[in-house]
């Protein structure tokens, strides 16, 4: 598993050169944005069940057959597995966001996910839709563009708009999962 710092190290080591001023500039940016990154991570961790449950409900609402007998979310045991997976994907996205690098998401979540779902007969199109909804909800909560109240308490107050860049980074991690399943 890598973070933004060790990613720079692995890249530099393959060239056999020390890490100099040019590479350090982006790392300094990462450190400077640390508070925003932490707030963005808190935006996920404080709304886990809300994000995952809404996404799965949304997926079911768009395909009501899923919860009917014979559907993929019937009986509740399978629906519960679906909710669990939503939370797991969200958890690895939160790790990647904190680390500033997708390697933890790739190694521990995405690798083999599609094969597992195919083997278990999970409909990929529906799984992708649920992840899309999670992405939209996460970005909205992070940037405080969700309708209704502000949904997270960051370390820095009123930082919603500041999280914009980090939110698009988070969206890219969801996109990574989506493209792995596509």
């Amino acid at each position, binding site marked *: *598993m*890598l973070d933004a710092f060790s990613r720079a190290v*692995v890249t530099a080591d393959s060239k*056999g050169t020390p890490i100099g001023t040019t590479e*350090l500039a982006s790392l*300094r940016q990462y450190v400077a944005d640390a508070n925003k990154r932490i707030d963005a991570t808190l935006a*996920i961790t404080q709304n886990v069940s809300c994000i995952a449950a809404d996404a799965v409900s949304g997926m079911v609402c768009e395909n009501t057959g899923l919860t009917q007998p014979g559907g993929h979310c019937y009986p509740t045991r399978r629906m519960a597995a679906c909710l669990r997976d939503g939370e797991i994907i969200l958890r690895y996205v939160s*790790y990647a966001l904190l680390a500033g690098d997708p390697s933890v998401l790739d190694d521990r979540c995405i690798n083999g996910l599609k094969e597992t779902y195919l083997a278990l007969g999970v409909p990929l199109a529906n799984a992708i839709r649920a992840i899309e909804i999670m992405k939209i909800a996460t970005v909205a909560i992070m940037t405080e563009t969700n309708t209704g109240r502000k949904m997270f308490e960051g370390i820095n107050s009123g930082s919603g708009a500041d999280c914009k860049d980090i939110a698009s980074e988070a969206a890219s991690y969801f996109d990574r999962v989506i493209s792995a399943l596509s």
Partner: protein
Amino acid sequence: MKSAVTTVISSADASARFPTLSDIESVKGSFDRAASRLEAAEKLAIHIDRFTSESLDYVYGSQSYDQANKDKCARDINHYLRLINYCLVTGGTGPLDEWGIAGMREVIRAHQLPTAAYIEALTYIRDKVNIPGDMNQQAAAEFKTLLDYLINALA
């Protein structure tokens, strides 16, 4: 690769939990110290060749020596300094442990290398860091901690 952030994530993942507030506090703590680490890494990258050649000149002195030997020793010191540069960036001893120290004893024994020369060179670098000419006080402290770590591993 171990760093402050990946250690926190690994332990969170081991118990299948989201990063808690205390996890985040510990990550934040490592960010707060990052400025001096990165400063040290930057200055070390700039001065790495000079540090190497000065310490080697000191170790080999004015006695007669085999130039090929000295060149190899310079290559190794340069390698160790590069790993210290990486450690300063990650904020942990991961790069030194994984790429410098693991297996080092076996290699040194197999080739009958004189570790005393390495230790002398690294100690010279540690003692001669110019503050604030080479790097500032906090950066030098981070740099010297890692030099000591490596010297202890070689000793």
